[in-house]
């Protein structure tokens, strides 16, 4: 399958990418990927370091006399958070300078999810390490930030797992006919990331004929945008995430595109969320939009 090139004038390019900074392996890979994208598209990077002061200084149940110790502890944790943020910022700037990618850093104080969502308004997309913990001073793992960002990001979000990804041109576009999936596909195309990539539309459905129809719809939509794509209609009883990951691995994809949380929270409550499962299980970066 030859790489795709769009019709002239139909593709915007991502010009400003936001990268969440902390010290996990996933964030390391996210920075790497952000630099690659920036080099390919001539974009600039903004590294966002977050001091989670609200959670550090949040009220706590304590006995009489505990308040003084809490203030002392809060002060030490905030100082440490600033010190670590500076280390992350310096490393990020060094890497961007080495790669000749224009970049700047931003240090903000606030709840991580709110800060990411707020800052994202000013950029074209955000890249976050899958194992990133922005509440590192107070929590061993940070599911709350992830939950909020995944549900509310107004721009594309690239989730980058901590493992190394084989360098490849292939992209798997998960498509189920939903509004979210269509929006993800268009968003991916308009970001410029589809240029020169080998596109594979993947549909997973219990009914082969229905799946084929859905997949064909996506392939046609891509053709209208000037992109050729290969169709993969998977008939499977496996959970969606598993089937999708297997197919993505079989085409050696280096990116998966998907509409996030296409179904209601109520459905997720009973049937689980495909997006959540995919984020937890993937070894390939995910391009997600709502």
């Amino acid at each position, binding site marked *: 399958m030859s790489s795709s090139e769009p019709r002239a004038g139909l593709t915007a390019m991502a010009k400003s990418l936001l990268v969440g900074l902390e010290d996990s392996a996933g964030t390391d890979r996210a920075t790497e990927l952000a630099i690659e994208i920036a080099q390919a598209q001539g974009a600039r990077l903004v590294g966002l370091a977050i001091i989670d002061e609200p959670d550090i200084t949040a*009220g706590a149940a304590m006995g009489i006399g505990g308040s003084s110790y809490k203030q002392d502890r809060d002060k030490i944790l905030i100082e440490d958070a600033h010190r670590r943020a500076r280390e992350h910022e310096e490393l990020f700037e060094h890497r961007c300078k080495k790669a000749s990618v224009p970049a700047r850093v931003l240090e903000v104080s606030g709840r991580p999810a709110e800060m990411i969502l707020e800052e994202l308004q000013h950029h074209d997309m955000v890249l976050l390490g899958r194992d990133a913990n922005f509440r590192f001073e107070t929590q*061993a793992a940070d599911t709350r930030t992830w939950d909020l960002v995944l549900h509310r990001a107004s721009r594309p979000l690239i989730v980058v797992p901590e493992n190394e990804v084989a360098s490849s041109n292939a992209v798997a576009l998960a498509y189920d006919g939903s509004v979210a999936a269509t929006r993800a596909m268009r968003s991916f195309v308009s970001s410029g990331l589809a240029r020169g990539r080998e596109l594979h539309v993947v549909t997973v459905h219990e009914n082969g004929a229905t799946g084929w129809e859905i997949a064909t719809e996506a392939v046609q939509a891509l053709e209208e945008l000037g992109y050729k794509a290969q169709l993969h209609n998977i008939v499977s009883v496996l959970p969606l995430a598993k089937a999708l990951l297997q197919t993505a691995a079989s085409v050696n994809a280096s990116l998966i595109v998907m509409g996030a949380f296409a179904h209601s929270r109520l459905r997720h409550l009973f049937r689980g969320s495909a997006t959540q499962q995919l984020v937890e299980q993937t070894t390939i970066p995910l391009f997600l939009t709502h």
Partner: protein
Amino acid sequence: MTPFWAVLPFLVYLLGIAVVPIFFGHFWEKNRNKLIVALLVSLPVFLYLSSAPHGGALLGRTALDYLSFMALLTALFTISGGICLRGALVGSPLVNTAFLAVGSVIGSLVGTTGASVLLIRPLLRANDRRAYATHIVVFFIFIVSNGAGLLTPLGDPPLFLGFLHGVPFTWTLRLLPHWALVNGALLALFAVIDRIQFMRERRLPRRRSHTPAPLVVEAAGRLQLQGTLNLVWLAGMVGVVFLVGSFGERYLGDGVLRAAVQIAGTLLFAALSYKTTRPEVHEVNRFSWGPVIEVAVVFVGVFVTMIPAMSFLGERGSTLGITKPWQFFWASGALSSVLDNAPTYLTFASLATGVASAAGGAVLSPDNLGALAAHPVGRELLTAVSCGAVLMGAVTYMGNGPNFMVKAIAEQHRMRTPSFLGYTLWSFAILIPIFLVVSHVFF
């Protein structure tokens, strides 16, 4: 008879102390705000006492108790803040269990806060490379910050309040079997759990360090105890408290003079400690007057609002449905786990005077817990209240002052500590079964 409404400020205040730091943490940080709240809740009580018979005398007596209480706490805090254990140990199960065992003993000599201050940082340093160390902090709180304080009035503020109200200094030594059962069980359980975690860690892939470097770096080196002169001041202070408490009434009367001698004596040793301790020892312990000032401010409200509450319970104690030792143990314990254990102790001790009076013999008063301690029924009730208030202060972070202090210090050392709910699950799983045994065996 004391009206019920006069007790409301006490109930509201205790609840406020528990809840306000959670929901209005920034407001509660300032001692000025705490003082405003303390004075506001005390105002209705002042007004009530100004018109009640002997109200003025009660307030005066309470003021002396408050000053004695604060003098002792200040002295214990200052002296224990002037001692530190420097140097490096490796945190093996044997070393850790030994630390906790030592803590379980010295807690009754320097107070649970003092013992916690002295031992927590060396213990954290010894275990800073452990991957699984949460249980160490949890058991430290159980044993050193709570269970250790059962044997003398110096061990825990509730017992000192009892001492101020007449319980003989050596009376709490009768709690030795209870202390031994609880701390023995906890130490045994800890030794097993620590061994399991230690062996589990040995199977982990080798890494340079399991935990990041602690935020507060202290010098390693040969193990040494610094500030040992404070042990002399401690002995002096204990001597003053014991002598004045045991013989003061005979030679100094039971009024201002006796209280003044005790206060002056304890503060003298506090001052000697502060003056003779090297600044670097204070620095290692991160000593500041903040906690003492905070306790002083908050306890203004506790002491004042407690006056009508104690009278009310003393008058009506036998009608409230709590009459058996095991009921006192669990009731005082349950409240001590979520409200500060010092006023809870006095509340239930007052209740016990009413119950013991109804059982026969002399009519007892909450102002004279010595008589309660000597009463055949009262003695058992006071034992139950003492155990409940001291031991169950460990059930949540709120039950006793040092609990949160230990958590905060551990977090400064980058050790993960359980959340409020997480810690409470630990305590329910481990402490409640032990307390069931205590209740069955002793009450």
